[in-house]
């Protein structure tokens, strides 16, 4: 499926800001076999004083920029044409009981290795309540992908999607206690549950098709950048993406931008800015099949 994606992020500052440095992770990733980027461009206003690109530890493309002082609005516009290929789910061939032995065979700390995604990360500390919920939700399942699906469905049923309930910094324990949140909370809660059971899991940010095919409902989370979960399902199956906000394995509707251990590794806009007054921001996404 071929998509035209446009993202606009806009910030307004009450008083002109001092200089600032930012890291942006906004453009779709090139992932052979999964998605092909035909074209991609990032427009920044005001024109940055410096701008560089680099690849982070997890392989994500990052744009690093510094803005000149004295601006009172900033705009990032990402545009891309991406071909998202359909994929068949692999065989669910690893049982949880065998996972420690399987992991012990994976002797590497290369970027895609499961070892990075099993320990607690700064935004997803271990949480006994979430782990207990996860264990109950997967009861009767022993294979990793089946467990993933069971947990994802249980979360989808239990949690209410509410864009006003949480912020970007709400910890998963709090979102889970209140049973509400947005895609980021769904994903981080699910990751906490999977890690709590010993299953390596990571965080994915990306885009979700905004206009559904005729006759199908619009998916949640399409108004802004979306987030979902990656699970390591064993050496043969590799990484499998699951979207707990919509209770489905990620498919042709999902276009990946970046992945990491939690939101902190993939934040679309990370920055340090000297500002004195308040600020407001807006974000708009269009992802249209062409």
């Amino acid at each position: 499926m071929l998509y035209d994606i446009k993202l606009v992020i806009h910030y307004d500052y009450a008083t002109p800001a001092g200089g600032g440095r930012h890291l942006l992770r906004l453009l779709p990733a090139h992932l052979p076999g999964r998605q092909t980027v035909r074209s991609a461009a990032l427009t920044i206003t005001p024109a940055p004083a410096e701008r560089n690109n680099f690849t982070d530890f997890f392989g994500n493309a990052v744009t690093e920029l510094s803005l000149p002082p004295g601006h009172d609005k900033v705009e990032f516009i990402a545009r891309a044409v991406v071909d998202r290929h359909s994929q068949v789910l692999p065989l669910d061939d690893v049982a949880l009981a065998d996972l420690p032995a399987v992991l012990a065979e994976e002797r590497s700390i290369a970027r895609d290795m499961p070892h990075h995604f099993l320990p607690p990360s700064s935004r997803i500390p271990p949480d006994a309540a979430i782990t207990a919920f996860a264990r109950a939700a997967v009861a009767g399942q022993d294979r990793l992908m089946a467990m993933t699906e069971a947990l994802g469905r249980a979360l989808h049923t239990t949690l209410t999607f509410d864009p006003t309930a949480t912020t970007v910094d709400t910890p998963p324990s709090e979102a889970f206690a209140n049973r509400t949140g947005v895609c980021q909370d769904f994903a981080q809660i699910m990751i906490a549950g999977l890690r709590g059971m010993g299953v390596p899991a990571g965080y994915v940010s990306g885009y979700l098709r905004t206009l559904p095919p005729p006759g199908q409902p619009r998916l949640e989370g399409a108004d802004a950048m979306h987030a979902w979960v990656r699970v390591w399902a064993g050496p043969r199956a590799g990484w499998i993406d699951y979207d707990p906000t919509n209770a489905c394995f990620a498919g042709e509707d999902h276009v990946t931008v970046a992945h990491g251990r939690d939101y902190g590794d993939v934040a679309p806009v990370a920055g340090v800015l000297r500002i004195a007054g308040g600020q407001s921001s807006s974000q708009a996404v269009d992802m249209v099949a062409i």
Partner: protein
Amino acid sequence: MDPLPLPLPPLLAGYRPLAGVADELLSPDGGVRPVWEGLLNHLSVTAPEDWTQRFARGDQYLRDQGVYLRHYGESGPAEREWPLSHVPVLIEESDWGDITRGLIQRANLLEQVMADLYGPGRLVSDGHLPPALVAGNPEWLRPMVGITPRGGHHLHFVAFEIGRGPDGRWWVLGDRTQAPSGAGFALENRVATSRVFSDFYPGAHVHRLAGFFRSFRNALMDLRAEPDSRVAILTPGPLTDTYFEHAYIARYLGFLLVQGEDLTVQTGRLMIRTVAGLTPVSVLWRRLDSGWADPLELDPASRLGTPGMVSALRNQTATMVNALGSGVLETRAFLAFLPRIARALLGQDLILPNVATWWCGQPTERDHVAANSDRMFISPALSTRPPYEDWQDHRPTGPLPDWLDQHGADYVGQERVTLSTTPAFVDGRLRPRPMSLRVFLLRTSQGWEVMPGGFARIGRGGDAGAIAMQKGGAAADVWVVSPRPVETATLLATGGDVARRGLSVLPARAADNLFWLGRYVERTEGILRLLRARNARLAESGSAAGPLLAGMDPLLTVLGVDPNEGIPQGLIQTLGAAIASAGAVRDRFSPDGWSALADLDKTMRRMSQRVTVGDDAARAIGKLLRKLTGFSGLVHENMYRFLGWRFLKLGQHHERAMGMTAILATLADPDAPEGALDLAVEVGDSVMTHRRRFALVTARDTVVELMALDEMNPRAVRFQLDGIRDQLSHLPGASGRGATIALSRAVAALHGQLDRTSPEALDSAALWAFRAELATVSELVTEGYLR
């Protein structure tokens, strides 16, 4: 040297090492080791009473230098005297040679481990390190993976904690690679100890430390890529417990001391914000833990870092000593794997073994720990705390094997350490006390160089767990003793050039603190003069002085000072603000100046307990004024006219002008009570001058002439403006900053006003208006230079 006559001297009566413990002083057969004979002889011929005096000499030196220990008790952080154990630890040169070889081998090994962990990761893929100990390690910083340090080396300055086991062999207890502290303290311990033993040390063939620091300074200078770029020491700031050492070593080596906010990254280069704009820095000796160095790519919660720091390192425009992420090498569980890694990477066994360690994430090792747990400490596998801070057990109360099965990967078992003992003076006698050494290594272009000496920790009791200074342990000097005379060069011989270059750059934050130091010290003086005059009036006239005092009190209350207190809290707080500013620039500040302020503060607090208003307060405040004048004299007479001094003077002039304008507008007002003019002249310290220039009787015109317009009176407003103009003319033009132009215009305009006015025209309203304009000068200084 003659062998020591037996029996042992009285000094050693009762000196009995514990069974099964090695002792530095006595060999296993009970005889004194030859390296100690000279010092023991020296100790024996001196009366015990004299020792008290000599020890006091060392302690006094440390107090004068402002060396203190910050510790964290139940009531929060507090500073206490530096706990120096006056008897040094003596080590024979040949013994030291073995230590040196072992530690150099270990430093080379750690460099290779570091390069691998932040590079190809072969140690994990070849099975030498479990992936979980790296991937789950908070000190392994993913943003640093793949970044090759400029110059190729990750480690430049490391330390090792070592101890001697019961068999007499040295063991490595822990690796300090993040930002090892203690080298500066080692230097201070040396100076203090050499004063205690001033008539013995010079001829004792003790290896000097200066050569090591000379090499260190040269090595850091050599790491620069461009000859015009600078070396700086990056500190987390005055709230860190080792800040004293950062300031001390910055002064000693002549390097800039900077904090994260002093730095910025521009066009990929690391720059220091100075009063003259941005200037490049290309070598940072980091005393800050890696994670805090860059809020953008490392810990986003850090307020101590510099956004873009990692980017500058990625661009190889700066060298970090040591590379960010070097804390991973301190991981306790690595001790379990380093012996094998040494064989794999170096093809050698470790010359100095490290503490036997087993990671409980492996079944065989877990079983071993469970079976032998009575002679082990069990502690967190990923801990990077130094061993002496953490000699305690973390094991559960329940059955150990079950618990290890569940949590094993998070823990290590380590053999319980028995440290050797060394003599310490306790109640007039020498007693054996456990000790460990911290030894420092520096990378030079010829390889690693080891500091011939170090930092010894001495336990309070017999327990190895009590050698941490936070827990009552003490510090001692380490003497490496040669059979031959040693080289005695000092650092100063080649030091001047570097020091000058380092100090000619003034970070904006330092300038800001000096400016405010000047203001607060002057404000303190102003308050003292007002209070002295007030209390003297009260003592002379009692309640009859009421109207006059009511007329002057607003001058005090506006500064937060309650005139009805003998030594008002508001006064103590103002001086406290001065001390806080001084504390933030201790590297640019003479120890004498610091002592003068600290002494004033101590006296003021003591007085505040008992001094009452009136005559008592007037006399006490007179004393305080003389002490404060001592500080001002030090600044004026002793402080080199660097840029920093100019900002201090700017602050003083500005504050004095503000104070004097307010005094005149209040006390020289036609409606002011009887006696106010005399009071103004007295507070302005100009009684004699007024008599000489005018008459015995004060009149408004003569007072305003003398205190506002007289360019010869160092108390007059006009004199302060001249001073401000003079200092500004020596400041860098800070090109491109409009505020510096606005600043000189504002000062010129104020001058113009004073030139055109007369005492009659300068009425209270005009004085208040003048003062409001004067206030903007401070803001413009901040805007133009201090951001």
